């Protein structure tokens, strides 16, 4: 990592290293371009001009304030669920449960908004909703933590399966006690009151939730890189046996890391409710958990790189809409592009890191 600064490195190796670094940069660029080329071939099969399409995708995302806002809007929950995957990953845990933790966070936040905070002023209501959202995510991740530490169950499997349970739990609520009485039997919650909505930036749908997400990413980065706590988490992730022999209470740490991850995803759920949808549906936040996991993988679980990868995924997601309008292909076909991006990154990850 810091080989260049070491005094013992010989000058000859210095130049070799920089050549190696150039190679790495070249490789990175290739890896980011290759999926677009391949996807372009796919588009050609459907008689869509890829260059035109990419250009319109670029225009729709960077070309206008609104479009750019949409990208940030999409990137926000991806960033938060990405953190929910990246933080445990640094402690050696694989949390695929960002999806479920987000949904349950949204459920808790909505529940609080509808039943307790309906007439609360913004400065009380919004922070409390945030707390409830974080709590919901943490509760859901807490189940994973208990299964992991007390039941010795693999957290990857349990967190993944709990996503389905979460979806059904939300369905249960929006069909039941949370159902909007004025909604003619549609399964969604009542609208939360207007003062609980996040302020938006004029000319866009963009709310201030994305600032919060960036802030949280910075906090996670700071903790991991600069504090004793983060050091310990990285030790645990690096070698569990060594952590145990140093006297760490490993299970205890697992629990707290998972709770924190759940809270981050839960906050994403809360932001979806208060920032965008205004009410809970059984489809709220669908796929953001998995996209976040993807973003975390692409960023090698580094919180600051995650800023970039979640933005990229947000951009591709928004561009999907353009695709539908501009080419007649379904919006979901951008998922092919996302998959290609991931495959290339994963395929190359080991080589880049060594």
């Amino acid at each position, binding site marked *: *990592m*810091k080989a260049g*600064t*070491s*005094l*013992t490195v010989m000058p000859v190796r210095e130049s070799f290293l920089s050549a190696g670094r150039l190679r790495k940069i070249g490789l990175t660029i290739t890896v980011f371009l290759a999926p677009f080329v391949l996807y372009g071939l796919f588009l050609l099969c459907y008689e869509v001009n890829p260059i035109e399409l990419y250009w319109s995708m670029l225009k729709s995302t960077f070309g206008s304030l609104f479009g750019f806002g949409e990208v940030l809007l999409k990137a926000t929950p991806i960033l938060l669920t990405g953190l929910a995957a990246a933080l445990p990953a640094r402690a050696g845990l694989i949390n695929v449960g960002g999806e479920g933790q987000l949904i349950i966070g949204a459920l808790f936040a909505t529940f609080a908004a509808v039943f307790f905070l309906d007439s609360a002023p913004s400065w009380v209501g919004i922070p409390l909703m945030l707390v409830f959202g974080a709590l919901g995510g943490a509760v859901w991740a807490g189940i994973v933590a208990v299964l992991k530490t007390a039941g010795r169950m693999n957290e990857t499997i349990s967190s993944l399966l709990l996503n389905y349970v979460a979806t059904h739990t939300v369905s249960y609520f929006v069909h039941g006690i949370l159902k909007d009485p004025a909604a003619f039997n549609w399964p969604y919650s009542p609208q939360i009151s207007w003062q609980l909505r996040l302020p938006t930036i004029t000319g866009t749908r963009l709310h201030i939730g994305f600032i919060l997400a960036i802030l949280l990413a910075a906090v996670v980065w700071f903790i991991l890189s*600069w*504090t*004793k*706590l983060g*050091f310990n988490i*990285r*030790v645990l992730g*690096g*070698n569990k*046996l*060594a952590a*145990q*022999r*140093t*006297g*760490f*209470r490993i299970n205890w740490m697992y629990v707290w890391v998972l709770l924190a991850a759940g809270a981050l995803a839960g906050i994403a759920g809360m932001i979806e409710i208060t920032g965008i949808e205004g009410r809970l549906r059984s489809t709220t936040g669908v796929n953001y958990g998995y996209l976040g996991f993807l973003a975390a993988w692409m960023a090698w679980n580094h919180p600051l790189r995650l800023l970039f990868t979640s933005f990229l995924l947000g951009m591709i997601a928004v561009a999907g809409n353009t695709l539908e309008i501009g080419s007649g292909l379904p919006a979901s076909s951008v998922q092919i592009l996302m998959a290609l991006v991931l495959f290339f990154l994963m395929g190359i990850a080991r080589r880049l890191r060594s």
Partner: protein
Amino acid sequence: MDRKHPGEVLLRTSGLTKRFGSLTANQDINLTVQAGKIHAILGENGAGKSTLMKMLYGVYAPDDGEIIMDGEPVVLHPPMKAKAKGIGMVFQDFRLIPAQTVLDNIALAVGKGWRFRRKQLRERIMEVSAKYNLAVNPDAYVWQLDLGQRQRLEIVKVLLMPGTRIIIFDEPTSVLVPQEVEAFLQMLMLLRKNGYGILLITHKINEVMACADQVSVLTAGKMVFHADTMEGLTPEQLIAAMMGDKQITNVEKLDTGAADEQEVLRLEDGEIVGDHGNTVLANVQLKLHRGEIVGVAGISGNGQRELAETLFGLRKLKHGMLTVKGKGISGGPKAFIDAGVTYVSEDPLKESVIPGFTILEHMVLDGMPVKEKRIGIDWQGARQMLEASEEAKALRLADLNRRADKLSGGNVQRMVLARALMRKPDVLIISYPSRGLDIGTTRTIQQHLLDLAARGTAILLFSEDLDELFKLSKRLVVLAGKQLSGPYDAAEITASEIGTLMLRGESA
């Protein structure tokens, strides 16, 4: 498959040498394997037995010397070539696929072409297993088999390999219970009668006495003893050859005046279980006094790791009482660390090194009192402290910025030892401190351990080097046959007596 000429030389090596970096694992080995003879290779752990066998099986290519078969030099590396020449090996850790049946495992190794000829193979399996008393059920899944059955499967596999002439057994009886050992030796003699050339790697002298025709002893990579006939050979001679003619000089210890009767660690009636819930040691009585070094002798794999881990809270006692400084202790490593216990594990690369972390980070993690700077860590302060540290200097710790996972084994060892010494613990559980180190550093470490004891630390020293144990310890205990025997006063017992104790447990 029967050979016509018993005594015919099947394989001969001359001047076989293998080096790993600066370490010479095998030097100038001359060895013959004859049809219808069992050739036993004796030696302690790390003597180079496995390296030699891996060269004969083609896993390693020799650096020097040659292997001669049928009158001409042959290349056996990679193992494919060794197999084609008729060399089969029964490994200590079996190369089997648990999710498949016995039949399929054999088919995988023996079968040729695209088609499994299951029926034909089944017949041959039954034939071979009847002939050599190797009961295997072709339709059982490997995961259902115990270790003894797996070994029989391995042997059947080797026997079914077309053209097998030489069979190498790597510590075959280590996985067997005593009753099985008897049957195994019977089978071995049957193989001999049928003209196979057999190489038997072992450290159990009674087995050698029971069945071998020839015996060679390896010590530190060299063939130090060879006998073409077992006639007139006594077990004592073999023990002496294995231990080498090391004069066990009781190096002058500092008179550990600090050693007093103050007991710091006590294990009573301990029963310790292994990774699979099997009892590894029973009825363990162990006491450590302030300022004394107690050496633990024993052939490795006799419960050393389990005992050490138990004394550091990594493993729960199944039964018994553990007290540190008079107080009963339970819980994990944290409780033990707080009570003043430090542990240096036998495999620091696996258990102590964190990939990507520098030496400095490792030292801060454990060993040095961490200098916290608000919520962060005062790296600069830690660096200065480490650079001033006497222990780090004495152990010639590598550059602090270097990544620990890229260090050599010796450098990792220095790092974990420096950590342990800097802690100045009340109790130090230390496994194989000089493993992988040159003589100079070994001396330094031994001196540091003695000094540490003189200052009042109680040390439990696990080592496979009897020389080291005698040099450092005040008292010795021996692990063998699920028992801990002793303590013996190091000044009153001889190395060969300890050696006998180490081996006796094995046959019990």
